């Protein structure tokens, strides 16, 4: 306790001062101390370095996270600034952005996922200059990156890398059965799964949830495209139960049939989250599954016995071709930042080819190229499994395809509309047609709300 307060308390106890006088003097002492502390704090603040708040994506590839942090701290040391790094991962990154933007306190710079520029456009700076400089020095952006980052003719994100999904196959089981990797889902994956699974031993031919998750949403989006359908037409208007009704119906029927009719999926697959198929594959319970490179990284990094028995191939397709949704992690600078030039400098530093190569190599296939010249890096030939990753990235298309990336398309994806559509057939017993109509009504509603 402050000695002056203690004196006052003693005087009050002995009756030397009245209670009112004690309170008045105590208030003066306390107020004075608070004012002094604030002055000290200001003096201390005036001497501190420029502080840049940097938000990064914490991926499952921990070695990549370490390199990322190290490089940013090196840059900060070099520029004599402080980089305050904060991390967010799949389940909480968007919530953090929403809360920070609404509180008027976003970071200076953030690593965002592909939908970030569209979602937070109102709070982001135009980064066309730095994006253009970096891209032109690297032979230009790959088409999907250009399409996803450029909104109304301006760039709101500087592309960094692509984290695509590929099709995982247990090579040992495939070879034992004398099979080749399937190139289409129906009948390719179905027959492959039937021939390779052994339900009595808990081994299932295919593991793909249709539950609310990134994995489920990505698969549903791809399968609609594979059948020539999709949620949007080329003008960005709702097409689920109108323009592409027949194609979407066939795609939906196939997706639910893998669970209800073909019986090639584990019984609990509708309750899976994003990590469930990783766990099931590594536990030896699946012959095939769709996943990002993080699963391969986990097996390689842990020297898992299945790492050498796993084959990564192109995602299977359907009657209209083979489609994969794009991924494009990118740097965004927030309008509120007072250090836009520093942020741009940091981006240029981080996207230096040597530094990016260091990050790419420890990421074991997860940090795929978004610029043309990076596709030529010999690293992508260092492991036969990387070819599928590279090819899937190059042909990938963004949410909203065949139309543009729109706020409505982003929201339909974020609201689990497509997985709910499948879930209503598998678990609630709706007919595919009824579920398609229900989902279309939701897409229409989102489209109208976003247009207004």
């Amino acid at each position, binding site marked *: 306790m402050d000695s002056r307060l203690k004196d006052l308390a003693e005087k009050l106890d002995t009756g030397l001062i009245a209670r009112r006088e004690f309170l008045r003097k105590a208030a003066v002492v306390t107020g004075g101390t608070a004012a002094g502390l604030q002055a000290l704090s200001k003096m201390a603040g005036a001497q501190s370095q420029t502080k840049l708040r940097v938000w990064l994506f914490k991926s499952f590839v921990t070695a990549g996270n370490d390199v990322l942090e190290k490089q940013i701290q090196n840059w900060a040391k070099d520029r004599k600034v402080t980089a305050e790094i904060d991390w967010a991962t799949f389940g909480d990154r*968007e919530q953090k952005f929403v809360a920070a933007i609404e509180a008027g306190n976003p970071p200076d710079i953030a690593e965002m996922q592909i939908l970030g520029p569209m979602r937070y456009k109102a709070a982001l700076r135009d980064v066309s200059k730095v994006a253009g400089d970096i891209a032109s020095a690297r032979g230009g952006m790959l088409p999907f990156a250009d399409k996803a980052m450029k909104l109304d003719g301006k760039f709101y994100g500087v592309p960094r890398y692509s984290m695509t999904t590929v099709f995982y196959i247990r090579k040992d089981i495939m070879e034992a059965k004398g099979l080749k990797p399937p190139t289409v889902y129906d009948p390719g994956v179905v027959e492959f799964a039937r021939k390779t699974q052994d339900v009595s031993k808990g081994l299932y031919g295919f593991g793909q949830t249709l539950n609310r998750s990134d994995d489920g949403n990505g698969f549903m989006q791809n399968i609609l495209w594979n059948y020539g359908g999709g949620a949007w037409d080329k003008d960005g208007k709702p097409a689920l139960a109108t323009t592409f009704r027949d194609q979407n119906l066939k795609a939906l029927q196939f997706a639910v049939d893998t669970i209800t009719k073909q019986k090639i999926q584990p*019984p609990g697959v509708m*309750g899976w989250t994003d990590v469930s198929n990783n766990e099931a594959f590594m536990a030896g319970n699946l012959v095939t599954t769709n996943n990002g490179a993080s699963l391969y990284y986990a097996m390689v990094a842990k020297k898992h016995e299945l790492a050498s028995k796993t084959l990564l191939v192109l995602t299977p397709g359907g009657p209209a071709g083979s489609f994969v949704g794009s991924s494009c992690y990118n740097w965004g600078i927030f309008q509120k930042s007072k250090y836009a030039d520093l942020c741009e400098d940091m981006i240029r530093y981080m996207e230096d080819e040597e530094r990016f190569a260091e990050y790419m190599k420890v990421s074991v296939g997860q940090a795929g190229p978004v610029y043309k010249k990076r596709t030529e890096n010999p690293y992508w030939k260092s492991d036969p499994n990387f070819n599928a990753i590279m090819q899937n990235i190059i042909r990938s298309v963004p949410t909203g395809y065949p139309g543009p990336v729109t706020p409505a398309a982003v929201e339909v994806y974020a609201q689990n509309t497509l997985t709910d559509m499948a879930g209503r057939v*598998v678990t609630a017993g709706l007919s595919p047609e009824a579920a398609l109509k*229900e989902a279309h009504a939701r897409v229409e509603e989102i489209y109208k709300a976003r247009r207004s």
Partner: protein
Amino acid sequence: MSISTAELGAKTALGPKREGPLVGLARMLGPDHRLGYLFILPTVVLVLALVAYPFCYAIYLSLTRKYVGVPPVFVGFDNYVKLTFDGFFQRAVVNSFIFTFGSVAVKLVLGMVMALVLTSGIRFRSFWTGVLLIPWVAPTVVSALNFLWIFDYSLGVLNYMLVKVFHLLPQGVGWLSEPGTAMASVIGVNIWRGFPFFGISFLAGLRAIPAEMYEAAAVDGAGPLLRFRHVTLPGIRNILIIVMLLSTIWTFNDFQIVYILTKGGPGGATQVLPVFTYEIAFGAQRLGEAIAVALYMLPALAAVIIVLARYMRQGRSR
């Protein structure tokens, strides 16, 4: 006898001095009343800043079309009207009621059993009390993540026990992948987590009932059931109402268990209002609509609280 106006004026002036409400309040608060205002000021400011202002602002936002990073546009009751006819919202309301009442009813029974057992002559009573409190003390996120693993179809311990250890089922159950079992599972976890609160509250109430009342009832020939009905239940009536009230509110607003276990799936089968609010706010980024979802059930909950509170006060006055 008549009194002139002047006399009346003089009598009034000489009569007892009229006191305004503030003077009366000042007298009631004592000579240091000004200091009293000063002391209460921080609390008032805090309540206004941290409760009243956000609440009023939330009501305002619910009447707007508000997207993240964009100024709100006033739309009146559009959000509420739209929600009324939204099938997904309706499903979330129904699920919320099933989740809440299914959970509270079982917690009530289990809590009562727990309290009765712990007031009986059971050995190591303190130990058992501690053990039974663990679910209530453990962080909900940790519990929910553990249950996520327990319920897993192929790697979960529950199916392993049922199928491989006890041979009770020929094959595992998709606890979180079927609508019925998914709802039952999330309710089950909520019950597991919440029943110790009922039990420990009832335990406190039971200990306050004089033993003489049970003795008198026994002398009158009342068996255990009659004693429970006519002595125990009336004795803990107020606690029972408060506990049910609190639990209803907490369960209705429970987010963590459902979000971690099912995210409202499969196919929206366990979608409850807090998860729906969260999705609309952070997934769709429609903040105005999300707040409208959160506030939509407020009048109904307030009505329940008022009715129960009034019922409780009536009971006390009797």
